[in-house]
């Protein structure tokens, strides 16, 4: 284990429905199958994949909200897959979770002060009521809410504000690592940007390690340092975000990137997108799990499971037999080609929202 690793998964597998005895006939769902990954201190790691690929299950395994069927999860070098009692409580202090839906993850009958103060009652029981209140106010300010919001109930807030409450609650115990399961996907674009900026600021200012689960590739590209791509319970590619986005090596990653609608109009790259749908995790195909949809699949792919191997630099790993032989497909940049005047207008907008002084030109006739 490398010294800068804070969280590590070693060959983690989670099969649902395995322990269900008679009379259950439900098939075993192989949600996560042999995943190994390391999260480094202070980085933002994104886990991306389509629905049903097991990314949320993996997040819950890393958090120890679920117990793995086999494999180990290490936090700070300690085994956590079997921890319980006081040990688990200490772990909860160091590791927190932000949920996707800000509408259902806050108890509607509790005030913000109680919601944010609750983790403090458990993790800092010595704190007096007034100290706790001061701490709550501080946390609210940290996430961009006001002190007087403490006495309100969740329904009085908008979606973005509720997500801020969720973040304040996660920060309350002073964690070192936060796992966010689709933390911004329920929010509108304009509010989403505010929360993304907030998470970025917090991770920088507090030295937090973030693990972000998301399906929006734009969000991931913006937020993360490294990205792991999952398909049907396995990681197919992992590497630095800019490497994976500029030079995807796995056919699935290539397809995923080609499928993002481009701001530059219809893409000619549709040949690279895949057809069909993801097979069921209760009956995954043998060998490489992507072979049923892969345009490059050969006989070997149907028999032998490819493992993550280092491609070129050790940080960029891919699980494909033919990664090196594949044609390199450089995804087109999604940056829009703007005219000079439009460019100037965007700069004007950015300057204005970041607190520039605005002067309205009065020489021009006002319409």
């Amino acid at each position, binding site marked *: 284990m490398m010294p800068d690793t804070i969280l590590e998964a070693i060959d983690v597998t989670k099969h649902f429905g395995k322990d269900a005895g008679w009379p259950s006939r439900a098939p075993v769902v192989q949600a996560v199958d042999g995943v190994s990954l390391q999260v480094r201190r202070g980085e933002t790691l994104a886990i991306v994949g389509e629905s049903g690929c097991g990314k949320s299950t993996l997040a819950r395994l890393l958090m120890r909200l679920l117990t793995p069927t086999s494999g180990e999860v290490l936090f700070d070098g300690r085994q956590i897959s079997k921890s319980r009692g006081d040990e688990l409580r200490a772990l909860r202090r160091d590791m927190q979770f932000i949920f996707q839906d800000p509408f259902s993850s806050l108890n509607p009958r509790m005030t913000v002060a109680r919601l944010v103060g609750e983790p403090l009652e458990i993790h800092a029981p010595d704190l007096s009521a007034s100290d706790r209140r001061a701490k709550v106010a501080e946390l609210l300010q940290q996430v961009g809410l006001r002190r007087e919001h403490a006495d309100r109930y969740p329904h009085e807030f908008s979606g973005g504000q509720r997500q801020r409450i969720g973040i304040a609650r996660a920060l309350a115990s002073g964690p070192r690592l936060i796992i966010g399961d689709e933390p911004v996907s329920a929010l509108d674009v304009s509010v989403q940007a505010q929360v993304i900026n907030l998470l970025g600021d917090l991770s920088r200012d507090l030295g937090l390690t973030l693990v972000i689960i998301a399906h929006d590739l734009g969000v991931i590209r913006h937020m993360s340092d490294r990205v792991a791509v999952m398909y049907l319970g396995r990681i197919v590619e992992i590497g630095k975000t800019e490497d994976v986005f500029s030079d995807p090596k796995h056919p699935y990653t290539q397809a995923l990137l080609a499928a993002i609608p481009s701001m530059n109009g219809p893409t000619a790259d549709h040949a690279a997108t895949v057809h069909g749908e993801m097979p069921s995790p209760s009956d995954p195909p043998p060998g490489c799990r992507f072979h049923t949809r892969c345009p490059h699949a050969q006989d070997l792919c149907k028999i032998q499971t490819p493992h993550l191997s280092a491609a070129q630099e050790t940080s960029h790993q891919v699980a494909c037999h033919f990664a090196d032989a594949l044609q390199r497909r450089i995804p087109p940049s999604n940056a829009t080609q703007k005219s000079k005047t439009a460019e100037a207008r965007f700069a004007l907008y*950015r300057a204005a929202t970041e607190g520039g002084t605005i002067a309205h030109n009065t020489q021009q006739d006002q319409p």
Partner: protein
Amino acid sequence: MTLTDLALRFRGQPADVVDRVSLAVKSGEVLCVVGESGCGKSVTAMALMGLLPQQNTVISSGHLTVGHTDLDLTRESLPPSARGNRVAMIFQEPMTSLNPAFRIGNQICETIIRHTGTNSANARAHAKEMLQRVGIANPSQRLREYPHQLSGGMRQRVMIAMALANNPQVLIADEPTTALDVTIQAQILDLIRDLRDETGMSTIMITHDLGVVAEIADRVAVMYAGQVVEQGAVRDVFDNPQHPYTIGLMSAMPGLGLEGKRLAIIPGTVPTISNMPKGCRFRTRCAFATSTCQERPKLRKIAPHHDTACHFAPLEAHIEVSQ
């Protein structure tokens, strides 16, 4: 299809949820209506279809032209004989808009029989053909299945097949790909594009995803809080956005080649209907707003195919910002 000056409020609310919206789509054209939740885009679509509950909807103005039919929306709405026939709609949630208790085949045949009066054998053959056209393998077996047996992408294909069964002139699609994964979304967008080319139908697509707009639209209308703030040919609008809201929305989109930089934001949140600002509804969140904005800006031409509703457009001619 042309919609002029639609103004609509729900009974008991102090302001219009849709405030003088005009939209037009030519045959063979895709118009995207884009905006965040609560901007009135779905309500507009429902009003077009005449699907809003009459007892608590007040339409104070609005005129709809479909082909040669003129409708005064204050008094009448799209007749049921046109709904699902000349004008068809696809909904966002393919999970909840199919009836779980009926087989796919029955549901598609129902629309066909209802509007053409054909017998069930013909309807079934037609339904099978439609499933084939939307790219569903093994259609005769699928017709016998129930919605829960299909995946999300497959259900959305069934919805599209159902909507297109009677060869509509206008297809209204309300967030047809929002609930789907990107690779499935790409397949559905391709399908809608192909069917448009094949049949020459007009499409009005409601979405909140600017990427989807760029991918499929010919023209785009940007809505904010019930008003159209900018509209035009999609390339004109995206390459040269004029309204501060459009600019803000594009700046706030992650992944547009600005990695590492802080995203520019639109401060605040969408105003609720009970305290909707007078005049330009965006002014409470707009960095450039002045007292002039208390008067409602009209949509005016900026370029031949590009209108915007901002007093100060183009911004750079009217406004200077210094650090």
